[in-house]
């Protein structure tokens, strides 16, 4: 098997007195689309942020394509789509201006944007179906359109792996349909993805592997088929409740 795009070994992430993700192993390989499921508070977002060095790492190692260092040191290979309900709007900015930020890590600080930077920005905007709105102000866009701006920003960096934190949460149906199409096209073009989500149905067509987190540990890792079987077999309360009712299942215990 080829070198994984990202490989975390025995990683722990957390804050001073609280370990949220505990000695966990996870790797994502070329061409994989991994859905990261789990109840609220199970450590999904902490894991993803930890991979980018946004949460202190308490132990373990991270390698990107076999090279030691977290995803922020190897930023050129891994794109991050943070969990946001909307973009910061304290000043006016256009879709192109926000997406252009995805090119910054790829050139030295003194260098202005080149023609190829601008082309990649335009292509990233096209990939998420917002070409018509490339020069629209982001504050005038709907929530779902703003999520696609964030995906385009990550795509502008031409990542081999795209890490997304709940890209479909709280988005209306029309936008969810478009997001599914966008993710499907990306998967088809060979971009590997690690997607934190509560809405597996939306991604069902593209997901190649499912990883379930619970209380900072992995409690399932396998193919979508195996996951369905796992759901059918098991009858402890949180699996029984299914991934749609994660919140109830954690709250109830």
């Amino acid at each position, binding site marked *: 098997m080829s070198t994984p795009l990202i490989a975390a070994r025995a990683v722990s992430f957390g804050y001073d007195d609280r370990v949220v993700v505990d000695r966990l192993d996870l790797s994502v390989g070329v061409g994989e689309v991994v859905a990261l499921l789990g109840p609220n508070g199970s450590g999904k977002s902490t894991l993803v*942020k930890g991979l*980018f*060095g*946004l949460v202190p790492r308490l132990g373990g190692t991270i390698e990107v394509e076999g090279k030691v260092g977290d*995803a*922020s*040191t190897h*930023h050129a290979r891994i794109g*991050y789509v*943070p969990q*946001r309900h909307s*973009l*910061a709007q*304290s*000043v*006016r*900015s*256009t879709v192109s*201006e*926000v997406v*252009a*930020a*995805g090119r*910054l*890590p790829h050139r030295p*600080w*003194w260098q*202005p*944007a080149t023609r190829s930077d601008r082309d990649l920005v335009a292509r990233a905007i096209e990939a998420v*179906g917002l*070409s*018509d*709105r490339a*020069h*629209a*102000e982001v504050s*005038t*866009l*709907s929530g779902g*359109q703003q999520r696609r701006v*964030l995906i385009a*920003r990550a795509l502008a*960096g031409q990542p081999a792996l795209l890490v997304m934190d709940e890209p479909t949460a709280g988005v209306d*149906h*029309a*936008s969810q*349909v*478009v997001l599914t*199409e966008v993710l499907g096209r990306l998967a088809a073009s060979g971009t590997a993805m690690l997607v934190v989500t509560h809405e597996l149905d939306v991604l069902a067509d593209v997901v190649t592997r499912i990883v379930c987190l619970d209380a900072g540990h992995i409690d399932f890792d396998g193919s979508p088929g195996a996951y369905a079987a796992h759901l059918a077999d098991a009858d402890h309360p949180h699996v029984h409740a299914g991934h749609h009712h994660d919140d109830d299942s954690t709250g109830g215990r």
Partner: protein
Amino acid sequence: MLALDFMRQALVAAVLVGIAAPMIGVFLVQRQMSLIGDGIGHVALAGVAAGFLTGTMPLVTALTAAVAAGAAVEFIRLRGRTGGDLALAVMFYGGIALGVVLMALSPTGTPANLTAYLFGSLLTTSSGDLVLFAVLAALVMGVTWVLRPRFFAVAQDEEYSRASGLPVTALNVLLSVLTAVTVVVSMRIIGLLLISALMILPNATGQLLGRSFAATIRWAVAIGVFCALVGVTTSFYAGTPSGATIVLVAIVCFLVTAAVGGLRARVVRAQHERAERHLHEHGPACGHPAVPHGDHVDYLHDGHRHAAHADHWDEHADHADHTHVDEGVHR
């Protein structure tokens, strides 16, 4: 007016400040730290007074105090939210109180001097100072111009910037230090209590006029220079303090723009026709024929044309009244 040395110097200083202050200010607005310049100005007064007391150049001591304050602001912010706000209050009020007391203690620090530093004066720009101001202002403008995409990205989304490997902390400290330098460059002509206004107000107006971040900056700088020049000229003829006059001009600019903009928005809204709601978005794959229309693409939907506007779709009229549509209804 131009025959007078001090007026020529004041006008040059006004142009420098008119460019530099809004350029830095836009990032402060973006980070919702609009009042930081004001606080740094308070601390700079302590520096000015220390200069008077010890007989060193007030410009140098003010620069030292302001830059230290600027860096401190960032470190306090970095430490986390709790108590940070109070720490800033202690530093800012401590600065201005210390400044006033030291000024009173120093043999050369007269109340007139104090007022000039607080509210700006045409008379205080010497040609020696002016050269130093010009060098500092050029430094601020150059660095801000080169780094503006990075400052923008960090202010727009700090978490993403960190995840993509940008040196976020260093950029934030640098922006804070540039703010401090701008405060010092502006203190003679605008005054330490009012400098923040010239960083922020032209941007407030620029936001009303520009439709993108780049356009906002261009407008803000143009308005900053305009206000500074008009303010200095008015101050000369009316005998009023220059800083306060410039700020009043900036406020008039903002109010007039807001009023005109409000009227225009009402007219545009009245002429604009939204398409019916539909559950899909138009695009290359939506199945509706795409028709190029001027600078954008219309989609033929059940016999009429839809074009992207903000988060929805507009009805566009036929080719026959194409030009009229582009000018009037749709922008």
